[in-house]
């Protein structure tokens, strides 16, 4: 699959996610496993957000700024380009307009990890292998920092009274953190190791999901 085809498809991604399916784009998604995976991931994120969430909050601008900076850093978009990330922001904004505040942090993180995973998989490989290799480590930094911040917030606000639940959440958070450390070490040592990178993003996703559950349980436990 040529890079130009993928780029053309990415330029049409907003329309695609809004239901416009030109025959050329359909053919590309049918033939390109990477873009098909990306569309599937985005569909899953949207579906999850719609199913599990409900009221009125605008996503914080810093999330989109951070995501955009990350994409620029990785060479996926150029500085100043009004590209599909802006469209993605608008699209996710529509979804997250309906997000209740207690579920917000976790939902954002899960979505962000999913999008990051989707982007680092299909797009980066097509654009520039060398940049992908060097950018793998860089791309995980902001995500990891954001998760650490969310973890601090979740633990601070957590107030569930069931010791079994509390112990389970904390113990498993430690387990996931340990795996993140192991995977980050592997990725640092072998940045081109796709398996380690996939495991790392899986671990990030698990941590985001766990923090979302802590936020939810903490809120329930009050």
């Amino acid at each position, binding site marked *: 699959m040529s890079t130009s085809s993928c780029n053309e498809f990415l330029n049409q991604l907003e329309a695609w996610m809004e239901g416009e399916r030109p025959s050329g784009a359909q053919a590309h998604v049918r033939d390109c496993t990477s873009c098909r995976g990306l569309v599937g991931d985005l569909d899953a994120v949207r579906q999850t957000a719609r199913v599990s969430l409900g009221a009125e909050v605008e996503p914080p601008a810093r999330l989109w700024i951070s995501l955009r900076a990350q994409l620029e850093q990785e060479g996926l978009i150029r500085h100043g380009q009004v590209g599909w990330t802006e469209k993605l922001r608008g699209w996710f904004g529509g979804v997250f307009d309906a997000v209740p505040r207690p579920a917000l942090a976790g939902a954002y993180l899960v979505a962000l990890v999913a999008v990051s995973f989707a982007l680092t998989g299909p797009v980066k490989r097509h654009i520039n292998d060398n940049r992908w290799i060097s950018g793998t480590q860089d791309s995980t930094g902001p995500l990891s920092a954001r998760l650490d911040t969310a973890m601090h917030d979740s633990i601070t606000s957590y107030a569930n*009274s*069931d010791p079994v*639940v509390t*112990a389970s959440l904390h113990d498993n958070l430690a387990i996931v953190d340990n*795996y993140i450390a192991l995977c980050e070490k*592997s990725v640092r040592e072998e940045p081109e190791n796709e*398996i*380690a990178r996939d*495991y790392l993003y899986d671990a990030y996703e698990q941590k985001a999901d766990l923090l979302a559950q802590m936020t939810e*349980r903490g809120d329930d436990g009050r």
Partner: protein
Amino acid sequence: MSTQPSLRSQRHWKTTGLLVPGLLLLSAAPAWADRLEQHFKVAAHPVVTIHNPNGTITVRAWTKSDVMVVAKRATGQVAVDAEQNGNRIDILTRQISDTASPDDLRTDFEISVPEDTELQIHNDSGGVNVSNVLGDMNVDTIAAGVDLEDAAGYLTVKTVSGSFQCVRCAGRLEVTSISGNFRLIDLRSYYVRAQTSEGNILFNGAFLPNATYVLKNYSGVIEVRFSPGDSFDLSATSLKGKVNNEAKLIPSPHHHFLPKFGNALFGALNSGRAKVDVNSFDGTINILKRD
């Protein structure tokens, strides 16, 4: 468990809400008791949701077109709400005292449903047991273990540390956990995706033609049991751990080269009709003959 649509109460509480459609609030009873029973008439393919943070939930299929809910509360500091909206029954336990301890809030459920019921179960600690229910199922727990028997449909199970066992399940199964162990016994599923971080995974089921089985963990042991007559195309990779194999695999047309990293095993057993994808970060993968 009774198979008759009866209305019973023990101790101090008696309901008069037999088969009443619409809103039925068990918690509205004048006094609490340790056993509450309620029945709901439902049509085909009903949906039952259960939100019970603490306690066991046992769901069994029966042949009646009723949903029977039996709740056993540890104390009166927890309320049980059961509400019918059309063909949907929502069951919820909630704390009504700020000073209650976790043990005070424990509520055990025994629920009988038609076999085509769709279930959505949310249970933090305790346990979930479901048998003979053929509808779609979504189970979400923290520390509670989940045991399914003779289930079918689209099964989605998510735990944090709870174990998962599925015996004679069919349909589509997706299960995720962080430290829970999985045992998938006598499965007849056409799609299985099982992922746990620190847990072990045992797969001892049928390899259906054109089915897909994806088993993944970070550490621990993944064990796949096979018989010589089974037919599957295997991809097994452990990045840092070992892959042990007793299957006489032949080169597969789907795998042309070994990956650069990790210990990998590729090949087909017989004609390779099912797809088996096993991955671990630093755990051990065992592909073993059935005893």
